[in-house]
């Protein structure tokens, strides 16, 4: 379930897209891990993530931070999204000091994550890399839309919705931030980055000509 791995993009926009998340291992350290996961989320929340969530409850926009934290269970996977590596370095430092004993994973540009690890004194344990997409590539939408939709690795954000939101912004019916929040809504884990989506949309608004589809 590599739901934060295959985010498409370029160095410029991926550097503002870092996800920090935590979970316990079933049958090993999951019993009573709820308090630790809540502690983890409170640390995240203090650092003002652009999104956060727990699949079982929802994301910042569908459920709200307090609700997400209150409903954490031992089996939850809890996430927060940040836009700067400096902030993530502070977050990870605090998480390390809290010594919660649950697994913590960071998704982002590898060299940035390694730099953060070095600053905080952490040795990466296990790493996962994407080798990209293979197969019938003609079935994919434009890569610019994929940069938006792949921010929900479970595929909950449809490329049709991304196209529709772009059209609504072009028509002046929605602000980019509103459109980005609507795109973030279906991603139940809260790993979709609305700040990055808003930036991508505002670049496309000037470049793309769209009609109804």
């Amino acid at each position: 379930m590599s739901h934060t791995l295959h985010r498409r993009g370029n160095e410029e926009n991926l550097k503002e897209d870092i996800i920090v998340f935590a979970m316990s291992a079933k049958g090993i350290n999951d019993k009573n891990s709820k308090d630790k996961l809540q502690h983890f989320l409170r640390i995240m929340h203090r650092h003002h993530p652009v999104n956060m969530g727990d699949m079982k409850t929802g994301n910042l926009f569908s459920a709200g931070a307090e609700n997400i934290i209150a409903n954490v269970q031992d089996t939850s996977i809890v996430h927060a999204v940040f836009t700067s590596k400096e902030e993530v370095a502070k977050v990870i430092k605090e998480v390390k000091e809290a010594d919660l004993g649950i697994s913590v994973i960071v998704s982002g540009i590898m060299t940035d994550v390694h730099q953060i690890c070095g600053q905080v004194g952490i040795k990466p344990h296990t790493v996962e890399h994407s080798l990209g997409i293979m197969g019938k590539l003609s079935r994919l939408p434009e890569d610019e839309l994929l940069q938006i939709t792949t921010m929900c690795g479970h595929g909950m954000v449809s490329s049709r919705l991304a196209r529709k939101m772009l059209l609504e912004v072009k028509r002046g019916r929605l602000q980019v931030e509103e459109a980005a929040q609507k795109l973030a809504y279906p991603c139940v884990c809260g790993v979709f980055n609305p700040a990055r989506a808003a930036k991508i949309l505002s670049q496309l608004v000037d470049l793309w000509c769209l009609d109804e589809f």
Partner: protein
Amino acid sequence: MKIDSQKCVGCGRCQHYCTMGAIYFRQTMGKVHAAVNEEECVDCGVCERAKVCPVDALYQPIHDWPRSIRGTFSNPLAEHKETKVPGRGTEEMKTNDVTGRYRPGFVGLAVEMGRPGTGAKMPEIEKVVMALAALGVEFETKNPLTSLIVDRKTGKMHPEAMNEKVLSAIIEMLIPLDQVPRVLQAVKKVAAEINTVFSVDLTSRADENGLSPGALLAAEHGYKISINGKTNLGLGRPLAREV
């Protein structure tokens, strides 16, 4: 997913949310309403959860096997009976600091069928599973897709599942490091034979420098490794013992 044609007022708000483009419009006794192409729908639940329908016309019937496969693989809120993990895969590298599933010298390889956003029909998934089974790879037993493989030697999948389609399904394997080029070559070959897409990834226990031996080897063989990825920080306790 189904739409109650009596209730539907044909506003179209749900249509763009559909991950599979399966919502269309038709006319019944002079009334225009939305309907779901059940063949293409993967029961992901996105349209209903979007809460955009002004008249609550969308509803998810409870399906029996084998149609039930669609929802369990496509709706992340559905928990797999086999793994108790919501979603489509396992804990994979996320808890590797505690489980020790990926040991030095081995690589986790995943082929995520239908990602991003195209969905995958079972016969397409079976083609890839069979190509990998022919190499003698070890499929991850805790992965829900593995439970649909009836013959792990040939990769033959459950015949009753063949009419089903899912938003995505992850073929998860553990292979010795030196097998990475051989397995990736087979993956690349079968990619040309399918009518959908998949995303590929490699997981390794980090080396002394925090790097992935699996990804380094793949890069040596000409595969492009993305600049972004996932890092398990090793903060879980008890730490897995490695032999």
